[in-house]
């Protein structure tokens, strides 16, 4: 038996993202953000995108390029405080922003990836986050219905991949990656190192290959991936 080779060029991997697509982006701040895939998406330029990501990165990085290029219709995020452009565009009504509690975003994505339609939680009860959500009573407790999230495409950053799409994440770069890698119709993983099948020990696989459609080998990492020097 042999596992398929899903290696793919950057341009081709991103080329199926059309106007109006919903796109999940891995990452929490810099760690895990697929900067190379995002740059290629900006180059190809489909507009009216709904972006699902923990945050909007910082000015001049990642999601900010999509915002600057006017490609974003809506952000589904937990926090955008480090990106002044995202805040300004939201306040001016240029983009729609849906805020989720961070664990709720994770769980909605996981639910989508697990083939579920949603789940019931008490998170946000008594706050404006619960407004407009369906109330549910379950086992004598009150909760709200949270809907699952799926995307047309998930763009994921991995530290290591094999050509079949088994993925490993580094340190705190894991964050939303394993969840989003389950929750999209098409999953594209960029990887710092790509090895042949067998090059990753089965016990150390974080995302199993069957979830992944394309593996894009990264060359030298761009500046955006590096340590951010702060004053």
């Amino acid at each position, binding site marked *: 038996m042999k596992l398929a080779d899903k290696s793919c060029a950057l341009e081709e991997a991103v080329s199926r993202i059309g106007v109006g697509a919903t796109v999940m982006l891995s990452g*929490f*701040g*810099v*760690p*895990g953000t697929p900067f190379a895939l995002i740059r290629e998406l900006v180059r190809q330029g489909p507009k009216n995108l709904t972006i699902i990501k*923990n945050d909007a990165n910082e000015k001049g990085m990642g999601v900010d390029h999509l915002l600057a290029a006017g490609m974003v219709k809506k952000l589904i*995020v*937990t*926090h*955008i*405080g*480090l990106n002044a452009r995202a*805040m300004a565009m*939201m306040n001016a009504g240029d983009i729609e*922003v849906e*805020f989720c*509690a*961070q*664990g*709720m*975003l*994770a*769980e909605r*994505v*996981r639910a989508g990836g697990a083939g579920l339609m949603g789940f019931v939680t*008490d*998170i*946000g*009860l*008594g*706050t*404006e*986050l619960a407004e407009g959500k369906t109330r549910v009573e379950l086992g004598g407790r009150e909760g709200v219905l949270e809907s699952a999230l799926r995307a047309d495409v998930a763009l994921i950053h991995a*530290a290591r991949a094999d050509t079949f799409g088994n993925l490993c994440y*580094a*340190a*705190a*770069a*894991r*964050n*939303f*990656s*394993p*969840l989003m890698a389950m929750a999209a119709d098409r999953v594209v993983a960029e990887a710092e190192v790509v090895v042949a099948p067998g090059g990753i020990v089965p016990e150390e696989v974080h995302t199993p290959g069957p979830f992944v459609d394309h593996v894009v080998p990264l060359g030298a990492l761009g500046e955006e*991936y*590096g*340590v*951010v*020097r*702060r004053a």
Partner: protein
Amino acid sequence: MSDVRDRMVARAAREIARGMVVNLGIGLPTRVIDHLAADFPVCLHTENGLSGIGPTLPYEQADRNLIDAGGAYVSTIPGSAFFDSAVSFALVRSGRLDLTMLGAFEVAQNGDLANWKIPGKFSPGAGGGIELAQKARRVVVLTTHVDRKGNPKLLEQCSLPLTATACVNRVFTDMAVVDVAEGRFHLREIAEGLSVADVVKATGAGLIVPEGELPRF
């Protein structure tokens, strides 16, 4: 940091008991770590996916993949673990987080907390704060007693959008240590050089003051 704030943070550090799992929010709470002895047994959790946070690292030594939720470059220690964001919040919501320390815009006498949004001025999103406030076993707040304009932050009711309802157990300020119990504020300790009257005046709700001398910090 002014002397009294340093004493407040040092006092808050004594809130952490041996063996606890603790999440320190962004800002003043992060500084609590400076007041813990290097061999003190505590597991610090950060919601972006790490338990067992080690010391913060300078730029030259930083690992580009290893930050805390505030974006600071941190390190691991023997026994650290990485996990995804769903696991991270499962830990919070299932009751495994013993204590969280958070900042505040407003705290109400019933324990309501507002710390994520000022309508029309500041709305970056709450990140992980809602679940930390709602589900940590114990929630303590570190804040100045009054805002920059001198208005009290401890109030009968919050006027800003809530982070979570009835969640705060204790507030450490630059003036006092105040407990929240049975829908009221209870004065427990007082900063050096202040009188009870000073604290009462700076508090925007009734303050239950016990008989006798209060501990100082």
